């Protein structure tokens, strides 16, 4: 055995606190170490060449590098070792920077600790074995969950490569929240005009299969080989026969608040969610349809010219296989009605949410794009009034610890500025007030956009949190502080629009559980690394994009979607996938079949395997195993070991630090 030790100066990152020369000198005293030296930057080309040269000249068969965290350069150093024709797992890194020099001040103590760390690494590497990665085949099909702008973009981008995509959306139509928006910042182009063509592209793309009104039931498998069960909820419509003419919706006697228009108007028990819906096929709301509930009515069936209505239709389950999954389940608005008693708990018709205001502005909305007071909706046309004074309140359910939403919505500074402009275009004489906490307009040309709202459109910004909204003589009174004036203000307005905060979509936590990916306390999915792996979920082969990862606007959602698609294409461009050999292994001679390991495994990587004699033992699926070691630690008879971190290797490290070195 010939071990080589290389200690990095890392500029002065390590050498300022650790006497690297002394560490290198010490290493030479350790058993089997035949070579030890310091290098200024191991990661640089000359640094790497020095090591390669030493491997060649001295015939080194195991390498210890004392440098920065293995999270940073392990892959680089493994490549270097391979290039010198050594098995790349014959390398051990002692973290002398993050674990030592950066966190200590006393040079002599830090040097002693560095020596211990190198000693541990040498003991461990002497017990390393040659390991080889295994290979699995990759299914080139991709599943996209959620058909908002992010899911749509991701599906189109992956399909562009000619690979197959399945898009699953739980609502009757794709489009997501963007379909509700009127015009969109920062350019004020019509949301429908940029979204609708993409929705149609999805429907027409021969590489994309669309399952709307469908949900994910079950996910098993692993990167390259996921098995997914999709529940297609019964629409009670034979989609093969339906032409989308809409005749069935005309005579329905039932009324329910429209989800798409957020309760501003109503829809029937059979309905097409909105005019641009894709697919343009109705759905029957089974919870209110009298034919479903009591077997009476059947009007829609009579109206349908193609006999497409099928009250007996049932949910179907389909099973599909995929190599990669993109999650794009978006967001919902914070339920301000529940949280804000001081704003009336939703009992005033003229206090509405921002998304409802989008629908009032929209030409395809319930008022045909005329901004009229919701309290006047039921009045005869001539008596319907436009609001003269409109107040927008930012951060309702964002940046508010009191209601458990400390984070920023990321969009409401921008869309309230947008409302100032759009309102003035609808009602030029309107007075617009915006109550805000801070103006956060950090995107490209965003600051200019907000300025324009103030300077060109005369929006009046009042800096303060609104303490109360109530009705007085038929108008809404807003009480707030004006922190710039240092005064209290009261404003009477006709219409108040609350910029409701952004929450994760309902069911996000359950979906995360099915997919085995992490989410934060608010239900937003967590990326693998906030800077360097922003669209990878915590489980290999699963990617996240759009507002399901955290509040964000359309430009960012689309950018993330394309980036997730690029990651998927990178993955499925390989026919086979190399999997890390640093996984658990079961010694079947020792396994007693207690399956504690199966219970603790967070990656469902342990399977039961029947032996010829009928006994059951555990087996590790190396493609699923992430090498966390939980099973290893749980296994009572010691049947499971983790490659690269065997009990023997770890105990040798412990021994190395416990032995007091007489020379120091």
């Amino acid at each position, binding site marked *: 055995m010939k071990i080589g030790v290389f200690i990095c100066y890392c500029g002065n990152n390590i050498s300022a606190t650790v006497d690297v020369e002394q560490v290198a000198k010490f290493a030479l005293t350790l058993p089997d170490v035949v070579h030890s030296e310091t290098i200024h930057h191991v990661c640089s080309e000359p640094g790497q060449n020095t090591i390669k040269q030493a491997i060649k000249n001295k015939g080194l068969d195991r390498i210890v590098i004392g440098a920065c965290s293995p999270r940073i350069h392990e892959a680089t150093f493994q490549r270097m070792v391979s290039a010198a024709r050594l098995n790349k797992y014959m390398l051990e890194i002692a973290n002398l920077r993050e674990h030592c020099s950066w966190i200590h001040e006393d040079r002599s103590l830090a040097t002693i600790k560095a020596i211990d760390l190198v000693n541990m690494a040498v003991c461990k590497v002497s017990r390393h074995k040659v390991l080889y990665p295994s290979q699995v085949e990759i299914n080139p099909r991709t599943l996209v969950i959620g058909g908002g702008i992010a899911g749509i973009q991701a599906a189109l981008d992956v399909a562009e490569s000619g690979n197959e995509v399945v898009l699953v959306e739980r609502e009757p139509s794709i489009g997501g929240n963007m379909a509700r928006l009127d015009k969109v910042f920062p350019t004020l182009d019509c949301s429908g005009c940029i979204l609708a063509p993409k929705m149609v592209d999805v429907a027409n793309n021969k590489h994309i299969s669309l399952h709307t009104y469908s949900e994910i039931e079950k996910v098993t498998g692993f990167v390259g080989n996921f098995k997914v069960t999709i529940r297609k909820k019964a629409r009670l419509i034979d989609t093969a026969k339906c032409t989308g003419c809409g005749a069935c919706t005309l005579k329905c006697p039932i009324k329910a608040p429209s989800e798409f228009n957020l309760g501003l108007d109503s829809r029937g028990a059979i309905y097409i969610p909105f005019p641009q819906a894709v697919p343009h096929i109705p759905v029957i709301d089974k919870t209110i349809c009298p034919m479903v509930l009591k077997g009476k009515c059947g009007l829609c069936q009579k109206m349908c010219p193609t006999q497409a209505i099928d009250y007996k239709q049932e949910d179907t389950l389909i099973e599909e296989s995929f190599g990669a999954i993109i999650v794009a389940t978006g967001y919902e608005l914070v339920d301000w009605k529940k949280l*804000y*008693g*001081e704003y*009336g708990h939703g009992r005033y018709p003229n206090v509405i949410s921002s998304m409802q205001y989008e629908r009032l502005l929209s030409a395809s909305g319930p008022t045909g794009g005329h901004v009229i007071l919701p309290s006047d909706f039921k009045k005869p046309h001539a008596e319907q009034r436009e609001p003269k004074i409109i107040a927008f309140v930012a951060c309702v359910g964002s940046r508010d610890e009191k209601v458990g939403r400390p984070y920023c919505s990321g969009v409401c500074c921008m869309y309230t500025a947008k409302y100032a402009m759009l309102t003035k275009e609808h009602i030029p004489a309107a007075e617009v007030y915006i109550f805000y906490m801070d103006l956060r307009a950090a995107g490209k040309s965003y600051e200019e956009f907000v300025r324009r709202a103030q300077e060109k459109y005369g929006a009046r910004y009042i800096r303060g949190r609104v303490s*109360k909204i*109530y009705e*007085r003589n038929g108008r809404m009174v807003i009480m707030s502080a004006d922190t710039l004036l240092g005064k209290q203000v009261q404003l009477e307005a006709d219409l108040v629009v609350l910029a409701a905060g952004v929450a994760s979509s309902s069911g996000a936590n359950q979906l995360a559980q099915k997919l085995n990916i992490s989410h934060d306390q608010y239900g937003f999915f967590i990326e693998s690394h906030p800077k360097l792996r922003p669209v990878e979920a915590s489980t290999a082969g699963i990617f996240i994009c759009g507002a399901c990862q955290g509040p964000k606007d359309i430009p960012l959602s689309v950018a993330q979607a394309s980036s997730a698609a690029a990651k998927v294409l990178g993955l499925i461009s390989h026919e086979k996938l190399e999997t890390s050999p640093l996984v658990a292994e079961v010694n079947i001679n020792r396994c007693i079949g207690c399956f504690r390991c199966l219970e603790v495994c967070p990656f469902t990587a342990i399977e039961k395997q029947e032996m010829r004699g009928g006994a059951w033992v555990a087996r590790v699926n190396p493609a699923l195993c992430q090498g966390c070691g939980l099973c290893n630690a749980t296994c009572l008879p010691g049947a499971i070991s983790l490659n690269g971190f065997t009990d023997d290797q770890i105990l040798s490290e412990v021994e190395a630090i416990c032995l007091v070195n007489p020379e120091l």
Partner: protein
Amino acid sequence: MSVQAYFPGCSLESSSREFDKSTHLVCKALDIDLKELPDWSCCGAHAAHHTRHNLSTILSARNLSIATKEGYDSIMAPCPACYNRLKSAQIELAECDKKQAAAREDFNFQINPDLRVFSILEFLAGIDKAVLQAKVKKNLKELKVAAYYGCLLVRPPKLVNFDDPESPVTMDEILTAVGATVVPWDYKVQCCGASLSVSDPDIQAKLCADILEMAKLAGAQAIVVACPLCHANLDLKQGQINRRMSTHYDIPIFYLTQIIGLAWGFSPQELEIDKHMVDSMSLLTAVLK
């Protein structure tokens, strides 16, 4: 007859005796024997907690320890300031072991951590509405009232969580149960100015005038409170408010327990309604017929 420990506090012994009186009558009618806490002291509100926070906590701790020693599992304090101080002290001592230890060492206080502190509102809110309804003898349907909670009865949510802190309903429900007509309004928890009535009466006058105006706009003939300070600011000070603000409000202010008492057949005199500064008797004569 069940026994309930009772902490009257200073106001109920002086400026708001009618609150004390009517609370006793209502509880008696409910078959509850109010037992005044022996040797109780100041709850630590106002002067104490403005000068030294710890003093205020220790004062309340003393009262809590008496209740513990007497073996009570709950204590009712009608005044919201007492209620707030007792509850704050309890939570503060429970959260901070060191303080609790110090309080124990210096004064030998033993406090039952599960001791419950009620305001009269929270107490009554816990009683089945059917029980309240069954005792009604007089029809109060003609009496239109606005329920006013003020700042401390339902807040802060960290201490008090039996009702919505910004848009409470429990008093409305109790008043409805005993037959009064309760008007919806939006000023249920707006500030009455509290002790600013002494230090800055201009501000207090403006705040109370707003409350009176909103009650009037909502169609209320009277306002119902459950706090001595709210009562003083709205009733005792109503004349002064009118002079300062050039207004002409003439709105009777009742304690919650007085309205319940009326419905249950006690006379206005028994309930000391004739002690109010704003004449409440004419309204009662008109609506009770």
